[in-house]
């Protein structure tokens, strides 16, 4: 792959968002992933979601670990800082960055290897802290950069490209997050942009840890017959339980939904998610019932998708820590250092 910068051509007729920015302003570097990779569709969905949310590009912080998925943070919103850290440790970088400045939008992109194997511990603890970030797993069941080993999300019985059959049970990030008390849990498919874009928007505006597990087929190592993470298999086995439409605070709800079939969930900044239940028996606000429904379908080899669980009342890290509204990195030194008189008082204890 070459790394020629994309020419920034701005056609005057390109649609603009509330900040006067076009979708091109939310793009990044040229992708170096394989042609047809599901990850590139997710990148496109993040660009669409950010543009639609009127995020100031510099207010977005993009975080990732190591792997194909982690490379993608370079491919969107080049006006925001990116931190491509070490394998499986992105949540700790995100925690520190978020502690320093709570007012930015933190978007983490990880893979199934980065999150469920080497980074499983940090992933779990970020959920426990209810770290305020959108965490997207680009889940393809396989290690791409090292050429096709099974990941921890590979299903029992799924076949590798060279014919090996996986025998170990998978770790499902959605069920795991539900168990750990996550306050926003979603699953989607890279091929369903309509579902994915509003989910990403809601995740970015949710106060707390928002997980989106996106099934994202690997065209090179895991798109063959016998794989349960191929495009074909995913299309045949995924089933939307709840459709979420995201309505930013400033906008009116369009007349498409009548009150009856949409359940509005109000986020802390006044934005709303309109949940449309596609499966009448599914309740995205009941953790136990939702978990068991997801599990039942997994047993049949099917994926329920959509915003599977949401709780807008959870306390995020800064609520628990009692940090002020002003970001810690903007408090002037004079307010941080207690000064010589205070030190003298402290020293009295040590005489």
């Amino acid at each position, binding site marked *: 792959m070459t790394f020629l910068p994309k020419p920034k051509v701005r056609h005057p007729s390109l649609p603009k968002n509330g900040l006067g920015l076009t979708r091109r302003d939310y793009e990044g570097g040229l992708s170096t992933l394989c042609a047809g990779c599901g990850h590139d569709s997710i990148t496109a969905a993040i660009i669409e979601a950010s543009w639609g949310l009127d995020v100031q590009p510099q207010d977005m912080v993009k975080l990732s670990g190591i792997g194909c998925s982690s490379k993608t943070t370079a491919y969107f919103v080049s006006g925001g800082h990116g931190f491509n850290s070490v394998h499986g440790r992105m949540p700790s970088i995100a925690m520190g960055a978020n502690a320093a*400045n709570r007012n930015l939008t933190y978007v983490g992109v990880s893979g199934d290897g980065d999150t469920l194997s080497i980074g499983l511990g*940090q992933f779990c603890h970020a959920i426990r802290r209810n770290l305020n970030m959108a965490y997207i797993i680009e889940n393809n069941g396989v290690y791409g950069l090292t050429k096709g080993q099974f990941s921890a999300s590979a299903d029992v019985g799924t076949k590798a490209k060279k014919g090996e059959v996986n025998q170990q049970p998978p770790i499902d990030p959605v069920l795991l997050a539900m168990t750990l008390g996550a306050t926003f849990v979603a699953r989607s498919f890279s091929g369903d942009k309509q579902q994915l874009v509003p989910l990403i928007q809601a995740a970015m505006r949710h106060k707390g840890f928002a997980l989106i597990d996106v099934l994202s087929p690997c065209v090179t190592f895991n798109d063959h017959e016998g794989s349960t993470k191929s495009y074909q298999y995913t299309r045949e086995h995924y089933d939307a339980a709840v459709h979420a439409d995201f309505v930013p605070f400033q906008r009116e709800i369009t007349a498409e939904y009548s009150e009856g079939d949409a359940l509005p969930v109000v986020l802390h900044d006044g934005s709303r998610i309109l949940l449309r239940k596609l499966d009448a028996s599914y309740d995205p606000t009941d953790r136990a019932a939702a978990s068991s429904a997801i599990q039942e379908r997994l047993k049949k080899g099917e994926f329920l998708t959509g915003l599977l669980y949401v709780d807008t009342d959870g306390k995020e890290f800064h609520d628990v820590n009692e940090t002020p*509204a002003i970001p810690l990195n903007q408090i002037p030194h004079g307010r941080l250092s207690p000064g*010589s008189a205070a030190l003298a008082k402290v020293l009295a204890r040590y005489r």
Partner: protein
Amino acid sequence: MTTDRVNDFAIKIATVNGTGSASANTLLMKSIFRSGIPVMGKNYFPSNIQGLPTWYEIRVTKDSYVARSGKVDIMVAMNAETYARDVREVASGGYLIYDSTWPRPALLARDDITVLCVPLAKLCNENFNGVRTRILMKNICYAGVLAALLNLDVEQIRTLLAETYAKKPALVDSNMKAITLGYEYAKANLACPLPLKVSRLEKTKGHVMIDGNTAAALGCVFAGATVAAWYPITPSTSVMDAFKSFADKMRVDPETGKKNFAFIQAEDELAAIGMVLGANWNGARAFTATSGPGVSLMNEFLGLAYYAEVPAVLFDIQRVGPSTGMPTRTQQCDILEAAYASHGDTKHVCLYPRDPEECFYFARDAFDLAERLQTPVMVMSDLDIGMNDWMCPDLKWDDNYVPDRGKVLGLQEIQKLEKFHRYLDVDGDGIPYRTLPGVHPKGAYFTRGSGHTQYGAYTEDSAEYQIVLDRLTRKFHTAKRLVPKAVVEHDPKVDIAIVAYGSSDGAVHEARDILSSHGLTTNYMRLRSFPFGEDVEKFLEAHKLVFVVEQNRDAQMRSLLTLETRVPKDKLRSLLHYSGLPISSEFIVTGVLAEVEPKVRKPEAVPAAGAKSSGGLV
């Protein structure tokens, strides 16, 4: 009877962990300190909550020596399990106090020491109720015995008790009762005071007794650290405990009642350092504290921080290795691990504080250096400095201090730029400019541990990769000018020198005085930081023979000096103390005299042949 030795002796107290002896020992030490007499206290404790043997050493030192002398003049043997070794350790002519409720004359027999019998358990059993209280009071009781024997001011002790238990007056009475029991018994039955005794001086004014971890935490609070992330590990935990406790009092915004700091207990050391990097990258002053095993785990992230140029401050409170080692014993054994942490070509700035006072100032300097140089800075303390109370001059804070936030471009500076290049050497000092998230899209860049160009783009091009790597070398050269200079005592007529660092400093000072009294004058250089500056090179060049004193087996600092300076290897002789106890002056004197013939021999200052030595010579 020996002649009087006023304000110059060492007491060692052998007890059982978890029996409340710590309060008795602190009480004794503080009352000596408050009498204006310089004092040293060292705690040798087990990695255990209750039941294993523990010792406390108090050295009364009119000459303000802060290290162990290597001798024990008075042993308070409260632990029957360790009687045999405790009695062996008393210096000839010294004293042994033991609980004679259960007489052990045969075991404790030594004809060159005086055994003082006090039925401590009997006294306490007759005067206190409850098993636990009796055990605790037995330990307070020996403090009363020592008060009588050493001529300590009992009123001073009462004042101290009143301060300690200000909120629990009942405890003042019961503790004072135990003190009095011991005091009266000694007065009535023993020859008080001993020739080893204290007499008021005026030498502790303007000083505090403080441990290095508390001082380091204070330094972090005053330097403006806002994010503290950590994983508990002995002996570093009290850095974070102290930071939390100070910040809870001094960092709560009076207007909002909110906390102007974030305190995060991480899931492991990997996460702790990751959080520190994330926060520093985003413009907060963030730090962690750990020990050797934690630094091992942090290696990968330290390499990232070096290469992606992210500031970080790390306190390594060194303990005995390798592996889990002896978690409650001291060593200087992470010197090489820290200097070269992580794979690939990496080098890190390290500071070597000698005592709690320097922990305080180095905490401040570490943040300034980390942000100026955009790289991790490790403050290499150790268990001896970190967990023992040291007499230090009052810590001072300059209210005019302005933090050095380094080359961070603000909004207006970014706006003026045509294009921002993260890793370009604009000023020729090897330090590039950085920007913070949330300021301006033009300032945005991509931070990565993979190969990058000086413009911040991904690369696998050899030449572009090397440009950045060579600039990092230049930056490390710049660091030599910025880090704390070595402290040098250099008489050009003298060609023998001692080099030491960290907690060995006090022992070296005393050892040099003893060597002088033998007619052996030495020069001295105390290393305070890595990378080594030109001053270090010059000092090493100027001497024929250089003793490198350190507290590890493998002569790690000697290795670092031979790798990073021009000094020929055979010029450096190591004196290596790695028993896990703090180094003593006696150890250094013995080591030097084994190599160099003094002009005047004073055999009494040198331990007899075969005396137990805890280290070795290389």
